[in-house]
């Protein structure tokens, strides 16, 4: 008992003698943000700068930013959103409707200035009249080529930079005969790069309306026009158009395959090509003197729309609907979606954005590239969204396995590919 009394007295003395802590200064609320693009220096720098600007200019909120590869972001989100422990702001793409359907995304109408978003980009993120994402990245599906190699093969592009179906096949065949890799593509870590050439050709053959039906499962892959395009593709594939290593070649490696080793003639890739290619060569970018050109996808015989082109919204940022710090997260997103930041994106990334920008203020070392890109996109009729924006579940999986991989790898024939796609995607 005596010992207990002594212990109590000692504790009391210690408490009285210890310095009284000063009242804690109001700590800023910290929110978490997860972004893709850990391996794309320009985009990473743009996101980092936006967060740094926000943190510097905001006393109430601070943002803790991390970069994670895309596949891991989506896997993590599917686990953490269910348990309510997701980041306050996260990378998102419009082709993941389950996040809307599950109610995990917060409408941003009350937080951002919608005038800061391009009109054409808004529909990608609009559901039931509300907007759910800041479309930082937008892109068109382009056909890049090595000017020197095309010249070496004795092919001269017409003034509109669009070959005919036969001329394009001839270019591929000349490359094969010369021992030069015709097309760079890798599907080792993405479910879509192997399908760009096929689907852009289908878009030009079918036109916007019927191509829309195709990707909505309302038009059969056994339609004669589709079969004609697939048969033309199959001829080039069997001749050896695509790399034999494409099944394991990753997207980043496909870039390297195109502009460094072994070097390919053409590279079907969205305009986010620049994210990797315009990095420093030592960081995996293209050589400083690389003769990059952009040609149009070939015009299909009897094609309904030779000037059609795919436009899409890619990497964006959304807010977790159960975030305990919506005001801070909203302020961060609002600070991103400004004309000034859109212009900075164009300058830094050399890629289109769904955030409004001021073309007159773009000061980029890649001005020539932009000039080329704008020239190729002039007079284009846009179809909005790549096939995976529309395909779901089994259909998306079949697209990935068949049209993205097995068909361009030459593993299956035209009829087999068409039947498999119809079985998985065609509305019954």
């Amino acid at each position: 008992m005596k010992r207990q009394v002594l212990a109590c007295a000692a504790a009391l003395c210690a408490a009285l003698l210890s310095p009284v802590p000063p009242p804690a200064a109001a700590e800023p609320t910290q929110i978490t943000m997860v972004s893709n693009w850990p391996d794309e220096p320009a985009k990473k720098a743009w996101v980092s700068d936006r967060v740094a600007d926000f943190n510097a200019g905001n006393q109430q909120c601070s943002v803790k930013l991390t970069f994670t590869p895309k596949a891991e972001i989506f896997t993590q989100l599917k686990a953490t959103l269910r348990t309510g422990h997701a980041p306050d702001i996260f990378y998102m793409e419009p082709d993941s409707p389950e996040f809307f359907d599950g109610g995990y995304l917060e409408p941003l109408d009350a937080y951002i200035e919608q005038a800061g978003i391009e009109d054409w980009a808004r529909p990608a993120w609009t559901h039931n009249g509300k907007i759910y994402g800041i479309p930082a990245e937008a892109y068109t599906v382009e056909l890049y080529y090595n000017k020197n190699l095309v010249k070496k093969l004795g092919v001269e592009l017409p003034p509109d930079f669009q070959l005919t179906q036969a001329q394009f096949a001839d270019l591929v065949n000349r490359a094969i005969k010369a021992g030069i890799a015709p097309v760079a593509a890798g599907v080792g870590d993405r479910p879509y790069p192997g399908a760009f050439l096929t689907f852009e050709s289908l878009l030009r053959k079918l036109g916007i309306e019927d191509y829309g039906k195709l990707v909505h499962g309302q038009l059969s892959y056994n339609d004669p026009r589709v079969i004609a395009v697939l048969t033309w593709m199959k001829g080039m594939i069997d001749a050896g158009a695509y790399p034999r290593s494409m099944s394991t070649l990753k997207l980043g490696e496909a870039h390297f395959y195109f502009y460094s080793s072994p070097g390919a003639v053409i590279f079907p890739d969205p305009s986010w090509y620049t994210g990797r290619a315009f990095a420093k060569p030592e960081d995996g970018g293209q050589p400083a003197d690389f003769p990059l050109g952009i040609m149009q996808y070939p015009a299909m015989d009897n094609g309904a729309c030779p000037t059609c082109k795919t436009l899409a919204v890619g990497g964006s940022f959304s807010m977790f609907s159960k975030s305990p710090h919506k005001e801070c997260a909203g302020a961060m997103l609002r600070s991103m979606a400004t004309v000034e930041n859109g212009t900075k994106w164009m300058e830094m990334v050399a890629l289109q954005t769904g955030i409004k920008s001021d073309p007159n203020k773009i000061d980029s070392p890649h001005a020539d590239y932009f000039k080329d890109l704008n020239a190729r996109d002039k007079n284009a009729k846009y179809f909005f969204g790549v096939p995976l924006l529309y395909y779901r579940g089994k259909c998306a999986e079949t697209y990935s396995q068949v049209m993205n991989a097995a068909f361009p790898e030459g593993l299956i024939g035209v009829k087999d590919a068409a039947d498999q796609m119809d079985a998985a995607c065609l509305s019954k």
Partner: protein
Amino acid sequence: MPQQVGNGSAAWRRLLRPGTGGDTSGASWLVLLLFLGPALLVFGAMTAYPMVRTICDSFFTIDDPDKPIWVGLANYVTLAGDGTFRRAVVNTLIWSVAAPVLDVGVGLLLALCLYAKVPFTRFLRVAWFTPVLLSYVVVAIVWLWLYNYDWGIVNVLFRAIGLGGLASAWLGNPHLALGSLIFIDVWKWAGFNMVVCLAAIHSLPSEVLEAAELDNCGWGGKLRFVIVPMLRPTLLNLYILAFVAKMKVFDLVWIMTQGGPLWSTETVSTYVYKRAFAWNTFDLGYPAAIASVWFGVVIVTVLLLNRLLRSRERVEF
């Protein structure tokens, strides 16, 4: 500790009945619970609960965890008609049956090499066991390089010896991809089986081996009639352990092929993962149904194997 118990308070004496010693049959419930509790808690939280929960989930559509929708056996009915699942089952069974035979067979051969004291035994023992120490991620990346069509060492060697026609896209050809992955798995695990087999060989009674030598039994005869029969329980244990592990194979496939090309390397585990995390849905009901069915298949197969083999040998694992 026994001294503390022996000299401790009356409460401790009540807890442990006199004369328990090494015999636990006389221990009170409280003592048993004290020792078993932590293990039971971990087992319950980490194994039993997730298992029961998964089976329960398979009867629901769970887009929203707070509002699961009861669908009865609908997920199982859908599963019965799911072609991709059937393909995954076939691939997994091929892997589970073939790979353990190769794992154990190669492991035994390597162990016999070491037992026979081939040159560089110490180096070979380390070299053959090293793959076991590597994670699947490292193994997968290394073999992605080795299998590369253009510059991978496998194709480079074929071309170098004039067999360029055999150079293939090992992971891009549906007829070769599964075999290529199984080969990697065997490469990784043969070393483990080698070590176990070597220990078992060294523990064989020397008088039996000496008797065989006195009977003029050669190496082949000794191997066939003495060593392998006496190693049989060890080999069976290794086979069953490997079989169970292969039924759950995921990492290697996911990193190298993600089930492609054309689902030729799809396994049940990769399909469950796809349906849970890469299928444009938050529904956990259908993946839970796949997992439940496969759990049942694994349990039944192991019981059958155990029963079949126990009729001849006592299998312990």
